[in-house]
């Protein structure tokens, strides 16, 4: 065939075929997408510090292990309240003349998704300790230690932010660990990562592939949730697997009067609305509200905490907790 023996015709055809398909499946959809999407009304632009922090995030290739996308499948429910939308990324533009747009959606989840980490883990103290060496707070973590974002000073200034690092993670160095500006920027960025709520009245897209609940008969007892698992997911990174917390950062639950006491209102209030003002410890975020914990889950966590690490307090029932939760909801800071 003449066509096959003429290199100009052959290669031109192959090129046009490929280029045509490229326009159809890549360029047009991309153009279409950026034309038809704008940021959600509630979206807050990154602060100047957070922008600097994002650059540090990019430079260190955090995207290799952390995604920033919540898929519309049930298993991603643990990362944010709703699946991601194209509008969530609409305000991300080219970084600078040298560097392309960084949506940082990622393709691997070696570590947790960070779409909503600003809500999930807002504690600055935790982030500082964790970035210095993640294994300080999460023993099993394999995340790199970013200790080069800190300096070690023998005599820190009053204005320095000092990080409470246990001696075992100091690599034999003496002095105080002081946060550099870079790590503070990075934390500013992490704290800014919050999923934007949809405008009132807009139903969020569904999570697909829901886990099938076993059809329970009318008489079947409601299945008790696993408090230990819920504790691992929601509480353990600060209060630690042994319930002893981290001195100077996170208070112990083992032997805690709040956990073992009878003031359930205070206890549930802390879980749902967070807590601050306890001297010597960091601020606790509203973990329960952030993770949309229901009364069953809170009951399971409370019962787990009241019966582990030598704690031995009376079990609570879901009805009790439900009542208190309705009450503490009213106290939630607006």
């Amino acid at each position, binding site marked *: 065939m003449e066509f096959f023996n003429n*290199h100009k015709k052959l*290669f031109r055809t*192959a*090129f046009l*075929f*490929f*280029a045509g*398909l*490229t326009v159809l*499946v*890549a360029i047009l*959809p*991309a*153009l279409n*997408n*950026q034309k038809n999407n704008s940021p959600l009304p509630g979206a807050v632009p990154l602060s100047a510090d957070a922008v600097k922090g994002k650059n540090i995030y*990019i*430079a*260190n*290739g955090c*995207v*290799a292990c952390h995604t920033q*996308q919540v*898929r519309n*499948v049930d*298993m991603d429910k*643990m990362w944010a309240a709703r*699946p991601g939308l*194209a509008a969530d*990324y*609409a305000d*991300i533009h080219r*970084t600078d003349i*040298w*560097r*392309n*747009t*960084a*949506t*940082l*959606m*990622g*393709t*691997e989840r070696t570590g947790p998704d960070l779409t909503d980490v600003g809500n999930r883990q807002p504690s600055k103290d935790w982030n500082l300790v964790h970035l210095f*060496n*993640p*294994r300080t707070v*999460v023993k*099993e973590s*394999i*995340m790199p*230690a970013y200790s*080069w974002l800190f300096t070690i000073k023998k005599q820190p200034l009053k204005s320095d932010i000092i990080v409470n690092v246990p001696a075992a993670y100091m*690599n034999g160095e003496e002095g105080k660990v002081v946060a550099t500006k870079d790590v503070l920027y990075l934390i500013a960025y992490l704290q800014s990562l919050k999923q934007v709520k949809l405008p009132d009245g807009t139903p969020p897209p569904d999570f697909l*592939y829901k*886990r099938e609940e076993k059809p329970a008969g009318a008489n079947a007892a409601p299945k008790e949730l696993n408090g230990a*698992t819920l504790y*691992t*997911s929601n509480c*353990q990174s600060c209060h630690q697997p042994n319930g002893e917390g981290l001195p100077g950062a996170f208070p112990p639950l083992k032997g805690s009067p709040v956990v073992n006491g009878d003031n359930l209102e205070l206890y549930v209030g802390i879980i749902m609305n967070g807590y601050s003002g306890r001297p010597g410890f960091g601020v606790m975020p509203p973990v329960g509200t952030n993770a949309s914990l229901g009364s069953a889950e809170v009951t399971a966590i409370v019962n787990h905490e009241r019966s582990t690490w030598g704690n031995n307090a009376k079990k609570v029932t879901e009805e009790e907790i439900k009542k208190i939760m309705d009450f503490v909801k009213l106290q939630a800071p607006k």
Partner: protein
Amino acid sequence: MQTSLKKWWKKCLQVAVVYLLLPVLVQAQSAGAASAPDDTALIVLLVIVLLAVLVAVLLLSFEARALVAKIRNKKMGNNTHQFEKHLENMNSNQIEKILQTTHRQKDRSKNPGSIKAVLLVVFTLLATLFPEHSLFAQTKVTNGGIFNEGGILITITLIMIPILAGLVLMVVKLSNILRKHRNRQDLEEADLFAGYLATLTGEEATEALAKRKAALDYNLTHHELSGQQEPADTKGLVSNVETEGYINFIARKKKAQKRPNIDPQLSKLILWYFGCAALWLLFGTTIGEYVGIKFVAPDVDHVSWLSFGRLRPVHTNAVFWGWASLGMLGLGYYIVPMVSNAPLASIKKGWYALCLINAAVILGTTFLMAGINNGGGEYREYIWPVMLLFGIGLILTLINFIQTIAKRQTKEIYISNWYIVSAIMFALTITVVAYVPIWQDGLGETIIQGYYMHQGVGMWFMLFTLGIVYYMLPQQLNRPIYSYSLGILAFWTQILFYTLIGTHHFVFSSIPWWLQTVAIVGSVGMVIPVVAGTTNFIMTFKGAWHKIAGSYTLPFFLVGIIFYFTGSLQGTAEAFRSTNLMWHFTDFTVAHSHLTMYGIICFFLWAGMYAVIPRLTGKEAPQITVGAHFWLALIGLMFYTVPLMIGSTLRGQMWIAGKPFIDSVVHMAPYWLWRAIGGSLMWLSHIFFAYNFYKMISRHEAVDVKEAALKKLVQIIPAETQND
């Protein structure tokens, strides 16, 4: 030779089966009733036992039936016919004995091998049962039931061993009883036969027997064709005869055939491409190995330039743009002029391209380690000024190749050139699309990223490598490609379907649903070019399988072909929404990309290099180190990928089940360790490759006794003439 070939095949088949079955089984289990996984496991175990029993019963019943038939036959008394048959089947020696002792002779015509056969059958059965069982146990792990527990698996295996052993023992015992009984029957028959022989005393019978013996004794003289003269090699056909000094338990591989000489300038250029490629392979995989170790030992260093997030793209980009790209281009510089039957248009442009690409990888690596990258898209981490150098290198190469093809001496354009030139055109296209900022805002970046990274793999590496295979494989087999048309079909369908599949890396994300569906459909369409290509290569092997044992390049080709099939189809399996649920975001993708980039691309590149370099330098690598390279790379790849796939499948299941994230990190630890071990083996194989490369280009020659003697002779003769 035969046995090594067989072993080789067995290995490949097992590997292929594991790859094909794993996704299927895993999917079947996720789709099937998750509530009763333990039941299915038990049923399969029972079926195995039942099958074993059934086989045993069948075996014994066959033996028993044969025995019964024999006894019945004897009772009928129809002996003379049987005896005549015995007589006909006698060999010369036996007839001789009859003739010698015409009056008294006994005979024993029986077959003593039956029990051995039975045992053999039983053992093969067992052997086939056990792998089945263990394979099952491995894949069974995926369903998260109690069969997860190593202890339970071991217990079941331990229970199965005595049961099956008891069964074997029973079969052997019964078979022994039957055999004894049959022996007795045979002996009785032999008595009767002896009596019959004793009656053969007549002149006629003796003569007939003597004739039969003469016929059986007939032999050729072995000089019918050759005549009586001494052989002489007057045309110099036989050379390099070696009868000793070589280990005989490894098949001796053939040396490279002498080819028409290549322009020494071009030869030098190609060797430099290969040399740079080999260096980038060593560098890139050393980084990869280090990064793999960091999964197991995250605190191995706390240096910013060596942190995981910075080194990972250093590894991927160095092996992509440094090793694989330069290796492919080097082979391209050999193949394009060769199949065009024309000299390369410009060797100078080749050197410029080499320098530009090397510069791009060096600069890119430095930038990445310093924390300057393009913003996160995989294989798009080099910033545009760096990638521009690479792009200019490719443009120069494209012009060079097209000009060479334009000057070709052949009428048609050989298919290798279709693939190679298109690959370069497409690589340039995707680079432009990926780096032009107009369509990169917001999710546009993600849509382009999906397109770019997958076209990089499929349209640059895969297409170019296929072009290499279409030339090198027929050349190494010394036979034409099976079907030119299939190659053309694969070419156009690859463009059609591969271009569509980019976004299957973002299934369930917020890019348009229809675009995800197009990508999934395209992934299924990829079956056509993959099956067409594999068929073409395998059929080219047809009738020449024996050549594998005698070649050190063909095993590399074969592994490449097998992974081309399994790895590519695995990609199709991964693209479905159901499989995305458990594999997306896990290390399964990492395992897949190593199966394909390493199993296909690297193995084909090595095959091509081991074939081409000896033709350029006239020197070969030691067979033993080529073998070490091959086996370490293959076994390492298996250790790397199989545990990673199993572990990742389980990790995905943990996520689906809503387990705490940190649990899934703890769960991966042993699989990451296996990955590091496999990676170390792969890395070691690259050291062997580098050594082999050095041996093939080394200027230091071993002393050739013949050459040295000739030189001495030349020195001696002038001296003697002077004396005269």
